């Protein structure tokens, strides 16, 4: 397992300084209370892009740093700590990955530099229901002249309301749940026939439901092979899962540290509540789970960078373990804070709300346990 190199330590430290100073939890609170339409702060995103975070995984030829997924994970962990809302996951992680894995030279040249520069928001539109099922695709793409016509709906698309570029997973052949017959399309956010409904979620981030009615795209909008898009989709999703898991570890770590601080300061019955052994053991178990999950996330990101053959299992492992520990950490945060943790004025509720949305995104623990078992042949 790779230990951080000097550049990575610098990247992490810079991310920590910036998020703690420029993007504390209060920033998310402000986005929420001002009912931000995009769900993120454009100026902050510009800052982040200027620091190079939008291009961490993008090749240098396309304006990125070619610094790998483990490095992007370091940034995500720090943004996760302060619940920073940004297009990092949708654009710099997921859409960039899909373009890198499946894009033609022309597509990469057209889009990756813009992503690296933070000029556009891009996103992957895959799910069509409230649960993650990447092979269950009903949205159709029908051949029309040299291009295609897309019809159907997408649900809970990250930054889907503000995205300039949508990577839409469509069915070009086969039955609704077949892995074969899936094709990815690049669709412009301003395409005719595209309707977007931005949703207000508990975590105050912006996701959108999309309706595509007779949306026409040209032949060069196809990303990767026609009918054979599922492999790229799955590889993209595994990288997105591992990256999101890094963000979640950051969120869980911060939730734990805030709680630990509270245990050390709050007194009841003339004792710091952190001296009560039942709470000590719960804290120690939570710390154990956190360290175990952290290893999984690092291993998954390392595997991606090293192009290992166990990326799929490790990505499911990382996502599931990060989800489980974040679930527990956020619940314990509320409970150990007692009444104050139930108030909107305290941050505990924000951590818990973000936790559940992140848990469900790209598949929950139940989905990934099932997938891990399938990959393990049982």
């Amino acid at each position, binding site marked *: 397992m790779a230990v951080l190199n000097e550049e990575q330590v610098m990247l992490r430290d810079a991310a920590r300084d910036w998020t703690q100073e420029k993007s504390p939890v209060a920033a998310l609170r402000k986005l929420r209370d001002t009912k931000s339409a995009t769900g993120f702060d454009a100026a902050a995103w510009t800052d982040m892009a200027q620091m190079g975070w939008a291009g961490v995984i993008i090749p240098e030829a396309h304006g990125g740093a070619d610094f790998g997924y483990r490095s992007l994970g370091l940034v995500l962990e720090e943004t996760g700590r302060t619940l920073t809302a940004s297009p990092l996951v949708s654009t710099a992680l997921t859409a960039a990955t899909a373009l890198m894995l499946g894009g033609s030279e022309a597509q990469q040249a057209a889009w990756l530099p813009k992503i690296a520069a933070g000029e556009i928001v891009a996103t992957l539109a895959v799910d069509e229901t*409230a649960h993650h099922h990447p092979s269950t695709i009903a949205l159709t793409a029908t051949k029309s002249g040299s291009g295609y016509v897309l019809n159907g709906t997408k649900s809970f698309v990250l930054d889907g309301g503000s995205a300039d570029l949508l990577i839409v997973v469509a069915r070009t052949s086969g039955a609704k749940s077949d892995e074969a017959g899936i094709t990815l399309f690049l669709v412009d956010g301003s395409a005719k026939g595209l309707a977007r409904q931005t949703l207000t*979620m508990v975590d105050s981030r912006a*996701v959108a439901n999309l309706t595509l009615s007779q949306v026409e795209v040209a032949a060069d909008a196809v990303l990767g092979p026609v009918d054979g898009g599922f492999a790229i989709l799955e590889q993209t999703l595994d990288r997105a899962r591992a990256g999101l898991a890094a963000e979640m570890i950051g969120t869980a770590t911060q939730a734990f540290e805030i709680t630990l601080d509270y245990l050390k300061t709050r007194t009841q019955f003339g004792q710091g509540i952190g001296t009560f052994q039942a709470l000590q053991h719960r804290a120690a178990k939570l710390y154990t789970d956190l360290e175990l999950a952290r290893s999984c996330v690092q291993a998954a990101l390392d595997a991606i960078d090293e192009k290992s053959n166990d990326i799929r299992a490790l990505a499911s492992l990382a996502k599931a373990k990060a989800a489980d520990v974040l679930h527990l950490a956020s619940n314990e945060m509320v409970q150990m804070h*007692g*009444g104050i943790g139930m108030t909107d004025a305290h941050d505990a509720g924000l951590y818990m709300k973000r936790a*559940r949305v992140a848990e469900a995104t790209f598949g929950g623990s139940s989905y990934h346990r099932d997938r891990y078992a399938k990959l393990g042949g049982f």
Partner: protein
Amino acid sequence: MAELDDFRAETRAWLEANCPQSMRTPMPGEETPWAGRKGTYKNPETKIWLDLMAAKGWTAPTWPKAYGGGGLSRGEAKVLEQEMGRIKARPPLFSFGLWMLGPVLLEYATEEQKLSHLPKIVSGEIRWCQGYSEPGAGSDLASLQTRAEDKGDHYLVNGQKVWTSYADQADWIFCLVRTDTTVKHEGISFLLFDMTTPGVEPRPIKLISGESPFCETFFTDVKVPKAQLVGKLNGGWEIAKRLLQYERQNISSGGFGGAAGLELEQVALSHVGEVDGKIADADLRARIAAHKMDAKAFALTVRRVEAESKAGGTISPATSIIKYAAATLNQHKYELLVEAMGHQGLGWEGEGFTKRELIETRGWLRSKGNSIEGGTSEINLNVVAKRVLGLLDHQ
């Protein structure tokens, strides 16, 4: 038993004749009959039903008639409950006065205090709130600091309470205050006063669920007549503990509710999909089955504890686990519900979600308070370990 049969017939006839039709339907949260001077009635029949029941004293069926109650025996009260259940009649009144204050007034108050306060609880004229917790005194309630100084004919109250349920809606407060700063438990008194007294200021606290059922309540030089002290000076802790018992009983037996309607497994079948009549996600299905079994075990335990307590004339030791088990169960139910709904269960407001989904999501957030309010689960477990299992304090 013939006597009860007669009572049953009369009661059934009276309810049939008097309970408005809309009061026989499930009660939406916004029609909860909290009454009081500030009470509003979205459905006017709510008020009609309250007044009819209060006139018979049936909002407090077993309280003595002298104080406005129904004067019913336990057997008769049970019949009334059954007959109301038969026609699915809504409770006519929700009231901390009924559930918490009234029972301790019956036990500890002077005759004058009883005559003054109990009838207005029965009728719903006065809505009460509870001034217990303080910012520095949560689980360790007895460390409370709100001072009441003896000023001859009155006490002068200064301090701050927190988690006062609906203090902004209430007319009067029952309040724990410190009347002796040199001792802990023995320096606490139990006061009643009007929320319109100058110097009382409730400020709603917004919760993570978006609701504000609680307030911070500030007292600045609030003058409380000495006649409004219940029980002995510095004898409030005993009353406070007794009242907490009633509160816990109320929280446990009422359960934490949750929206009525579809069962968890129905939500899962519809949101997750089904294969051969089973919830498609086998892992989630197994966890839902385990939860349903826990819920059934809990319901059976409530029934058993009631039967044992009744038969034994004493409280079954298993009673001590009820609040803890109820909180754990309700929180688990909501976690499963939200998981089963997927992203559709994580909406805050607005388009894209059904009303039912939004209610369940808020209910999930609200449920996090179950293991904190009315004694945290940690305190519950301490109590079981010490009082029921006889384990000793760490020295």
